[in-house]
Every structure is written in structure tokens, then in C-alpha cells.
């Protein structure tokens, strides 16, 4: 979800390493590739269109006369451009991708194939509803699975990603308070360890954010929560399993205290994959929870989206759900698109259409493939794999919470790096040279130099061992004083460490035709 080297822009340090260099500056078969605007031309195209006999006289001065500034590529050039660029990315298809809280698991290709069936992909959101009964049925079944797995009575499918789902949940909570004429509730409580989206969303909805403290063992501090709850609190937002990878043991008590104070319990469902099939959030007293279909149900992350963030709602919040939703009528399924009649309490609309249908198809195919038994196994294997990684690494690295099991991710702090001169960031960058994507670092904020490892259930034991052995070897190197290996890392990636400070100080956010201060990468000769 939100993982980054929080607040720590990287800046390369001067560490040199002898390497063989090619004559043209390239790196063998890993081709350098110029920008589209350098390799393309305005008069080149990769599509054959019959020229229209244009008569735009009716448009008058609305017609664009100046050049737009686009570059074009023929089809073979386009294929090379993007394939060359793709080779500079790491991907879950290449190796374990242990970004804690992000759930990088295998993306089944069957789901891609299903989403591309013309009967789903070639549907217009506003074509007559009688012509999309199968699509509505799929949404209805997806809703049934989500409600059953969470033990919640209602679900809003339309939110487009996790943070959009948080927004949906808080808007429903706000509408519920307003419906009782309770306008005094202006605060939302979140733990210090929360995802950044939680406080950002609360502020988006016009709430003030108050942090709740954390206990020594990485859970919500009940006493602090009780002290901060009051008639001015609209909701609490708690992630469970939490961002330390731990189950909130007192979750039922947290819900009870919250409800007693007249507030609602928003659960950040980013980590639902750890408990799916075994625990229903509805049994824990949750009022609203988003489900990242791109995490738990494995729709591909696509280099940053699209996601999908349906929100399950309790009985108390169900009638405030946003439009649209599906109703069963005499002539089949119907999409109710307006807040009116029996649905007059709906708080509004989250986006133009009905949500991320392409993601719904993929997630539903994933659910059918796994079934009730497979989904339960997903949670168990995810938790097993994380505990296995924790067990294998704890001799060399320091677990943030050594006592008791973790859930689907193992959290380490940087105590074990003390005195080495190596930071969490350095260690993470050195992982790249060993062939792995770094774990989530410096998050959650409550753990110093945090390293949050989420292996997921789709890793084999052999891959887990390969990963653990790479980290153990690095840990040994760190403790042995092999500092340059870390400070200069990565050495073997397509690029060395990047200057993020320069990027932020002098933002260059688009290509411009004038000569740049930065020397361009060597270009392929055409």
C-alpha cells in the first residue's frame, strides 16, 4: 500500500567499483533506451487509418491548429521500446517480492484470460441493463463471496482502490452520524503504526486525527484508546492484522469500547489475506472494512494499479452505502444508480460508473479457483511462510516483536545493524544485487529502521530458503565490516542509486525539447 523509504530520500555516496564498460556505454543485451520523444517522430505512426475527408468547418475556431507535440513509433519500434523498458523492472514473476503490507503474490494468468472475454471486456457501463445480466450476476456473486468471507451484511463494490475504499467507509460513517443529527463528532483515532492513507483519508473527510499509542508488544494501547474515546470521536481506524504483522488480540474489546463511546470501527483490510477463510471481521465488531482485491485476491498490481477496494459494511452502516448497487427484481438483476426512494440514505457516489469490473472478474476467478478450502489454505500458508522467514532470520537480524508468532509478515528493526555504519536503506539496496526486491522499509513508523517482510503464500519453500540465505549472507557481510557492498549498492541493477534530492529540488516532470542539463543516456543508433 504505502511502502517507501519514508522521509529518507536517497542520495548516492561516493563508492566506486571497477566494472568492465562497453564502447557505446550500454550494458550488453540490457539495452539503453532513449525517451519516446527522442526515439519517436511526429510523422511516424504504428496504426494504419484510412484518412477521413475532413470537413471541420462547423467547428470554426475550436480546431486545434498548433502542433500537439506527440511522438509516434511504428509497431516494431514500439514493441522494442516497451520491451526494452520492461527489462529494467523487477516483477513478482522474476523472484520473491517481499514488500510488507503490499502482498505481492503470484497473479494467475487464467484471471487475465477471463477478464478479456468479450462478454466482460467489451461491455459499456451504460448499455441497457437487460444486455448485461451476466456482468451484474458476476458482481452479485462477488458481493456474496465478500460478505460471506467477512461475515458482513452489505458491500459497496464501487471504490477503486484501498484508499478510495477508506474514503467510502468514512463517508458512510459520517452519514450515519449526521442522520442522527450528531455533528459533534469531529475526530478520528488511528494508531501511530497506521498506513499513511488512514490519517490522509480522515482529513479528506474533514476529520481531525488523533493518534493512539501502542503497547510494548506492538498492539493498540487499550488504556490510551479508552482515554481518547469520547463524544467527539466519529470513528477509529485500525488495521488488523496490524502493520506490525500482528493480530490485535484485544480486537473485540477495541470494538466494544468504540461502540460504547458512540463511534464506529473502521478496519483497514489491507492485511485481510492473513485471515481470509479463518476469521470473519464481522465477528470482531467491525463496522466497515475495505478489501484490496489487488492484495488478498491477487489482481495484478500493474506497476501501481489499478486496484479495487470494495467496502463491507455492518447493519448500522449498510443503508448509507453509495450508489450504485445491485437489486434483485422481477426481471432479473438491476443496477440502482441513484440515491432515491428506499435508497435515499445513500451518501452519494464514489466515481462515474460501477467500480473496477476488470478487477472483479479476476478476483472472482481467483475465488472460484481457490474455493472455501483454498482460501483458508492461502491464509495458513501466508502465515506459515512469514513465520518461517522470521525463524530462519532471527539469529542474524532482530525481530521487532520476538515473542509469539507473527501473522503474514515478519517485522525486524535495525538494532542488529548498530555499529556497522550500515542503515536499513543500505541493506535494502544491497538485496537488489543479490536478486531480490527490498522489503518494505522504515514502515511502520513505530519501529526503528523497520524492515517488513511479507513473503505471501505463493512462494515455495525452496524460494524462501534462497531468499533467507541471501539475507543471512548479507547480514554476515554487514557484521564483518564489508561496508562498501552496502553503501554503494546497488551495483548490479540497471541503474545505481538515484539522486532523489536533486529530483525534488529541481523538478523535471516532463520531457522538453530544449537541451537538458543532464547528459542523456547513450542512445541506440537508428
Amino acid at each position, binding site marked *: 500500500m504505502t511502502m517507501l523509504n519514508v522521509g529518507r530520500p536517497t542520495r548516492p555516496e561516493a563508492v566506486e567499483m571497477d566494472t568492465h564498460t562497453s564502447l557505446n556505454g550500454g550494458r550488453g543485451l540490457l539495452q539503453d533506451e532513449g525517451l519516446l520523444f527522442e526515439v519517436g517522430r511526429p510523422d511516424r*505512426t504504428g496504426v494504419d487509418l484510412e484518412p477521413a475527408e475532413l470537413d471541420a468547418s462547423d*467547428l470554426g475556431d475550436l480546431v*486545434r491548429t498548433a502542433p500537439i507535440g*506527440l511522438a509516434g513509433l511504428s509497431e516494431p519500434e514500439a514493441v522494442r521500446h516497451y520491451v526494452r523498458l520492461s527489462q529494467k523492472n523487477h516483477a513478482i514473476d522474476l523472484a520473491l517480492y517481499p514488500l510488507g503490507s503490499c502482498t505481492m503474490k503470484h497473479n494467475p494468468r487464467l484471471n487475465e484470460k477471463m477478464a478479456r472475454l468479450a462478454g466482460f471486456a467489451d461491455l459499456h457501463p451504460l448499455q441497457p441493463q437487460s444486455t448485461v445480466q451476466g456482468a451484474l450476476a458476476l458482481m452479485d456473486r462477488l458481493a456474496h463471496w465478500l460478505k460471506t468471507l467477512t461475515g458482513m451484511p452489505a458491500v459497496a463494490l464501487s471504490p477503486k482502490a484501498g484508499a478510495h475504499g477508506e474514503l467510502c467507509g468514512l*463517508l458512510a460513517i459520517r452519514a450515519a452520524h449526521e442522520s442522527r443529527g450528531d455533528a459533534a463528532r469531529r475526530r478520528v483515532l488511528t494508531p501511530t503504526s497506521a498506513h499513511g492513507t488512514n490519517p*490522509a483519508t480522515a482529513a479528506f473527510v474533514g476529520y481531525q486525527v488523533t493518534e493512539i499509542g501502542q503497547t510494548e508488544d506492538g498492539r493498540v494501547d487499550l488504556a490510551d484508546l479508552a482515554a481518547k474515546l469520547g463524544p467527539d470521536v466519529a470513528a477509529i481506524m485500525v488495521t488488523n492484522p496490524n502493520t506490525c504483522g500482528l493480530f490485535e488480540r484485544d480486537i473485540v474489546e477495541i470494538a466494544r469500547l468504540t461502540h460504547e463511546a458512540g463511534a464506529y470501527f473502521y478496519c483497514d483490510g489491507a492485511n485481510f489475506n492473513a485471515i481470509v477463510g*479463518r476469521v470473519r471481521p464481522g465477528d470482531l465488531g467491525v463496522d466497515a472494512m475495505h478489501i484490496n482485491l489487488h492484495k488478498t485476491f491477487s489482481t495484478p498490481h*500493474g506497476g501501481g494499479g489499478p486496484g479495487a477496494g470494495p467496502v463491507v459494511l455492518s447493519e448500522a452502516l449498510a443503508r448509507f452505502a453509495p450508489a450504485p448497487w445491485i437489486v434483485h427484481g422481477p426481471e432479473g438483476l438491476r443496477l440502482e444508480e441513484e440515491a432515491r426512494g428506499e435508497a435515499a440514505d445513500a451518501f452519494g457516489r464514489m466515481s462515474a460508473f460501477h467500480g473496477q469490473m476488470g478487477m472483479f472478474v479476476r478476483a472472482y476467478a481467483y475465488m472460484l479457483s481457490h474455493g472455501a478450502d483454498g482460501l483458508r489454505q492461502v491464509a495458513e500458508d501466508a502465515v506459515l511462510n512469514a513465520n518461517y522467514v522470521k525463524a530462519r532470520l532471527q539469529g542474524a537480524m532482530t525481530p521487532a516483536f520476538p515473542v509469539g508468532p507473527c501473522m503474514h509478515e515478519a517485522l525486524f528493526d535495525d538494532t542488529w545493524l548498530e555499529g556497522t555504519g550500515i542503515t536499513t536503506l543500505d541493506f535494502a539496496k544491497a538485496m537488489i544485487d543479490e536478486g531480490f526486491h527490498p522489503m518494505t522499509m522504515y514502515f511502520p513508523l513505530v519501529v526503528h529502521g523497520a524492515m517488513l517482510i511479507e513473503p505471501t503464500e505463493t512462494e515455495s519453500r525452496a524460494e524462501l530458503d534462497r531468499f533467507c540465505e541471501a539475507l543471512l549472507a548479507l547480514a554476515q557481510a554487514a557484521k564483518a565490516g564489508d561496508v562498501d557492498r552496502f553503501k554503494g549498492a546497488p551495483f548490479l541493477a540497471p541503474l545505481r542509486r538515484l539522486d*532523489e534530492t536533486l529530483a525534488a529540488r529541481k523538478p523535471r516532470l516532463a*520531457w522538453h525539447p530544449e537541451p537538458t542539463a543532464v547528459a542523456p543516456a547513450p542512445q541506440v543508433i537508428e
Partner: protein
Amino acid sequence: MRYLPLTPADRSEMLAVIGAASIDELFADVPQAARHVDLFDLPLHAGEIEVERELARLAARNRPGGAGPFFCGAGAYRHHVPATVDHLIQRSEFLTSYTPYQPEIAQGTLQVLFEFQTQVAVLTGLQVANASMYDGSTACAEAVMMAQRVTRRKGAVLSGGLHPHYAATTRTIAHAEGMDINCLPAAIDAEAAVIAAIGPDTACVVVQTPNVFGVATDVTAIGEAAHAAGALLVVVTTEAVSFGLLKSPGEMGADIAVAEGQSIGVGLNFGGPYVGLFAAREALVRQMPGRLCGETVDADGRRGFVLTLSTREQHIRREKATSNICTNSGLCALAFSIHMSLLGEAGLRGLAEINHSLARELKAALETVPGVEVLSPRFFNELAVRTPVPAEVLVESLLADGIVAGVPFARLDPTAGLDDVLLIAVTETVTSEDIAELAGALKRRIAA
């Protein structure tokens, strides 16, 4: 289970390494009352064949756009997407990577985003664009809230030509932040009423061109009036192909331009995922929502790209962020960018010209249908027409002829009293024969 590599033997050996007697021990923190021993009441796992069968059955109960003449638009357009686009976005390294937080091993995604931002900037005629929003409607809501931050004013005027679902989305989200959203009544020439609605607390005016009725308008005068009152001009475009023929928002004085990018590369997908385009004047960049990719150098001085200005974003600024957005529409932005680079300048212009020519052909054909009145004076590829019977009835009856005739305006806004308005769009996927078939069927159905 084909997606789970661990064997029973692996599991017991791993439990031994962990020092746990059973998997249940690892779930010991779950309260007893919430532990489910039995499986939930859902089907058990299924093989590829069974899953394909089930989904094919559901898909067969839908009528795809390609099944016959198809004229729906109203914010989503059925354009042809080159086969190359779908092939390339399924490259593992694009499809199965995460947000590019480790730039050294994400230069592919980052360079694409930089190119995408540049394409969006030149298309909209503005200087900076972000790395995408969820869709056009949420981009519109974000633009209004950005205007509030820039101007420190609480009001927004939404033209009655703005897509009603965009207006509803904006009202829902911006209202929650305490903004006063003035949605003007829906009308074919709604832009005419916008200037009079601007007041001293107006943060921005939001106008769409071509508007939801297909009407293309020069909004320069609205921008001048907004600027004179200290407000920003937000220009919305729901049909991105129109950028190839019409004046850009920037040329008309837009401070912020938002658009739905679905037309390029993405496909219909029953409404999502789509890709929101978001661009602004350079001076406003630090108030922009969402991710921005910027150019820099690596330790060896080689050009590279990183996510930048992240002090605007939720993972750094938390409750002080400019938006709560995290995951955006990365892969759809890639699809947009690939399709746009295949088109190029010449291709986009050519595509836009084809679309406009077909719309002129459509207009001529509709003018031969007794009882149908074309309402849009200047248009790109979509027309609003007045129908002699409720538009919804007409659309339903033409389904029997195998034609999906368009979107009844009442579907978007049932309270506007425009039940007799039908929105009809054409793209390069529509043929002259389709248009003739539509006109013929309309004549028959209206006469009947």
C-alpha cells in the same frame, strides 16, 4: 491447489523449524470466539476448466459492443485498441510489478510514467501532469479540492454540461471536505449560465468540453471571468480522442485539466478500470494530488527517473497530504501511453478526424429521421438528439433490431426532465452501414 507450492511435508518441516506444533498455534492471538473451525459456506476449489466454464457462462449472458451496431458514449467510448497494446501490458515486468518505490529496479515503469506525463501535458496544453488518477470523475473531484487549497475558498461552480456522474462524485467527495458545490441545471448550452454563477468565494468553475451533450465549446471567456474573480478554471474532457482535433484546455486558459483517458488503450470494461488524466499549470505543482515522476541522475551520472515531490503524499504527510490516493491506474496509464505512441501526432489527428467525420455523417443521417431533432450545434463525435418518445423506450425497442442506439440522458440524471434526450456517439469502430442501419431502424420504430 495449483497456486500453492507448499506440500504437506513442507508444512510440517517448516512448523518444526518455527517450533510450532500446529498451524493453529500461529493463529493463537485470534480470540477463541472468532476462530472458525469449519469451512465457510462457499464452493470448494475448482480447476481451470471449471472456472472457465463458469465465467464463460456469465459472459455469454452479456451483449458485447462488437455484437452489432453500437452507439453508447456518455463518458466511455468504444475505440479500437491495437493488439500490440494488450500484448505489451501483459509483459510480466509491467503487469506483476509494484509501485516503483525502488527506482533502481523500476526504471521501466518510471520511464513510462515520465513519458505518460509528458503526453498528458502536451495533449492538455499544460505544463505538468501526474502519473494518473483512478478515472476522470475522481480526477474532477480532486481538481476541485486542489482549487480549494490553491485559492483558500470554499465554493465551486459546476457547469450543467458536466457529466452528471462527475458532478455527483465531486459533490460527494468535496462536500465532505466542507465545500459548497453549486451544480447548475443540466442544459445543452449550460456553459452560458456559468459566468453569472461565479462569486467571491468561488474557488473554481468546472466546465466540460465536449460537454455531456456532445457540445464542443470555447471556454476561454469563462476562464477569463473566473480569473477576474480570483477563481481557477477546471476543464474536463471525457473523450480523450477529441484532443486530436479540438483546442486544448490550456489554450483556452485552463489552470487544471482533467480527463478520462479510457478511449486510448484501455477499452470499455463495463466502467473500470479506467485512467484519470490530471494536468495543471506549473506554478500549481505542489498542490497537485497523486504521484509525480521526475528526472534525475544515478551515482554514475546516468539519467534516471524517480517518484518525486512526495512530501505532498499520504505516506509522508499523512493527514496533511494533498490527497489520500495511493494506488492509481498504473497499468491503464501504460496502455494509454503505448496506444498514444503507436498513434503519434499524425495518428491521433487522423483518428480524431475519422471520429468527427463519422459524427457529421451521423448527424446527416439523423436529420432524415422524422421526429428526431439533433440538439448539439458544434460537436466532436457525440450528439444529443430529442426523441419523440422517451429515449429509454426507443433504446429498448431498437435492441430488438440488434442495435444499441445510445445512452438515454435520463440514465445519467433522472431528475433533469430530459427523458426525451438520447446521447449517440460514434467512433472509428462504427461503419457507415451501422449509421444507415440506425437511421433506418429509428424511422421504423418511431413510425410504428
